[in-house]
């Protein structure tokens, strides 16, 4: 050009950076493209629409007597429903939070104190704790006992002793009437 720039060196210089720029952007686009192509395949392994569609269950509570427990299935997992007696409720409410590895009040875990509703899956590695049937061990705290690696849960389903890190999960549920709930 007329301004006398050295055509060779400028061509070389800009050629270098331009090539690097092209490598970089092409490389980045390839990665984005590959990730975009792989994601649908990975995501296909996540829960499918039919699995998600099964995710709510209605339960009639009227046949359950005080002190009785029943187990129902929700999303392929057991859900524990226990109709607690006054003593169990009082015990759960009076437990000092300082005694709990995963502190949570009993009020935060129930809609109505009489009805304790829990996902019956140990928060350690997923076994089903014992304590639903009469005669099964309920552990040191009168709730549930997981035999797999020895976790003890109390009458609010809170972890008290053993390797499980968390309280038994409370599933999302609503009371449809006084005597029936919808889980999920």
């Amino acid at each position, binding site marked *: 050009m007329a301004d006398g720039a050295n055509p060779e060196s400028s061509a070389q210089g800009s050629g270098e950076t331009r090539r690097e720029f092209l490598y970089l952007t092409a490389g980045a686009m390839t990665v984005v493209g590959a990730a975009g192509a792989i994601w649908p395949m990975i995501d296909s392994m996540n829960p499918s629409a039919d*699995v998600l569609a099964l995710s709510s269950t209605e339960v009639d509570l009227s046949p359950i007597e005080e002190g009785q427990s029943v187990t129902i299935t929700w999303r392929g997992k057991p859900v524990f429903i226990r109709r607690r007696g006054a003593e169990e409720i009082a015990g759960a409410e009076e437990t000092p939070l300082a005694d709990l590895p995963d502190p949570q009040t009993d009020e935060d875990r129930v809609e109505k104190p009489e009805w304790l509703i829990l996902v019956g899956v140990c928060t350690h*590695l*997923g076994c089903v704790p014992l304590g639903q049937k009469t005669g099964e061990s309920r552990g040191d705290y009168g709730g549930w006992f997981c035999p*797999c*690696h020895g976790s003890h849960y109390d009458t609010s389903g809170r972890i008290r002793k053993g*390797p499980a890190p968390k309280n038994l999960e409370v599933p999302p549920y609503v009371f449809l009437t006084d005597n029936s709930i919808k889980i999920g």
Partner: protein
Amino acid sequence: MSFKTNNKVVQWVEDRLPLISMGHHTLYEYPMPKNLNYLWNFGSLAGFALVTMIVTGIILAMQYTAHVDMAFNSVERIMRDVNNGWLIRYIHMNMASFFFIAVYIHMMRGLYYGSYKAPRELLWQLGVVIFLLMMATAFMGYVLPWGQMSFWGATVITNLFSAIPVVGESIVTWLWGGFSVDNPTLNRFFALHYLLPFIIVAVVVLHIVALHTVTSNNPLGIDMKGPQDSLTFQPYYTIKDLFGLGVFLILFAGFLFWAPNYMGHPDNYIPANPLSTPAHIVPEWYFLPFYAILRAVPDKLGGVLAMFGAIAVLFVLPWLDRSKIRSCKFRPVARVFFWIFLINGLFLGYLGGKPAEGWYVVASQIATAYYFFHFLILLPVILPMIERPRELPSSIHEAVLKS
């Protein structure tokens, strides 16, 4: 390459695809140290086991149904109605155990004779990769019959991933394809159980390429220095490997025909029930030492890390052991600690099969600590300070003549 032929057809193929000369090289003229003992048989035995698993597995897959409502019954049908189905399934079941026996002995051989040391680091690491893939394959295979142990083993092991902070739960849901171990899980485990053995074959090929680049170690742990130190593979080691295979198969037949369920667990003949966990769940015997390590740590994430760490240390072992001497024959202190390590490992296996209560817990904590002490402190720090190795012989040939 010394392969020569007068056959025109063979030569024509050779000029285009040198398969025959490759085979000739690896199975015929390949030089092996002449002082190998029977511990060097277990590599070829593991290879035989892998082929057996693939052949019997493919035949089983023709009769098996990967659906939660049908899997258990389809396996029972294999046992009762399919011609020789019982035999094929029992071979698959028991050879899985024998595969692990062969591989464990193979690995212990490597530990004792320092076969992981330069220049065999990659060879050793490929072996650890094979071991990991085998464990994944066997775990998923055990889920397929959909018995109680299948189901609860799958539940406990997949739940290990929930220990990962933040994303753990999403990963577990993704692994399951649902909110618990269920039909999508069984389906994908079957797909992967079919796939992984072929990946293992590919890694075995790399393992052998690496082996043939660096050649076999031997009980003395010194290099071959010339033709006087070696023997050709054929006929010396082909026949020795075949003889070993005969012995292996006699023992195998003992289990296969007289105690086919000895190494299994009776609860797996109860159909899976997602609402009731068996009182005492245990994995297959070959996982027990690692299961003991998992349970020894009272913290969930800590236990998972310790278990995977137990295998990770094997991966970096070539750099943890700082002695230049390979064979424990010439390492008076390391040799003693090798046996302690082995007994400790067996003890961990024993503990893994016991319930996690009472003294078992304390014992597995001590044994776990010792496992890591061996790799992380004893080998890299203590042994270099206290051990004075014995003098190495100048060559394999000389040592063989003397004995």
